[in-house]
């Protein structure tokens, strides 16, 4: 169990340990997750509009 630091130096170290290609792949993965989330939220909102209610 670890408390969250103000500046996450472990994340910085993890990215510094990557090769440039690995960093690009990681950025691509993050972008893919953002797209998954955005698509999912848009579909949930559309479903809620169709159902005449707010998103669950």
């Amino acid at each position, binding site marked *: *169990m*670890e*408390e*969250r630091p*103000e*500046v*996450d*130096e*472990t*994340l910085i*170290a*993890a*990215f510094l340990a990557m090769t440039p290609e690995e960093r690009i792949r*990681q*950025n691509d*993965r*993050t972008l*893919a*997750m*953002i797209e*998954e*989330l*955005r698509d*999912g*939220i848009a*579909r*949930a909102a559309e479903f809620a509009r169709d159902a005449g209610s707010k*998103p*669950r």
Partner: protein
Amino acid sequence: MASPALQSLLATLAASHVEVIVVGGLAAVAQGAPITTHDLDIVPRRTAENIARLVAVLLDLDARYRGHADVKRPTEAILIGKGHSLLMTSSGPLDVLGEIEGQRDYDVLLPDTIEIQIGGNPIRVLKLETIVAIKRQSKHPKDQRMLPVLEAALKGTPR
């Protein structure tokens, strides 16, 4: 189900029926906040069954704690607790948060989430308005610096 290496972390968690709430930067970005983030923050439901599913997924993804010279793996005994586990997986960095600011755990946050589908499986995302409310209460300088951006995103109409 695709192999974990080919799926996003989110899709893998959803496909494995792990109950989590996506919080933090990715949740905000997905709801229109113009910020950058590099890791996925999740708050898991802390029941024994759900944490067992989560640990199984994490071990499949070769998860280990960041910032440790030796390899330290997440365990059910650790993740059932309220603390924060900062992990690196084969699919990228992942922060597993037992609870977030104000002792908010999965059950507390649940009413303020949106259920979405990823690959046909449900996963929950913390609403932007709740993220903003939590940041307003936070005394952390990082949260205070981010607050104006999040508030603007909440007022605006994200494209």
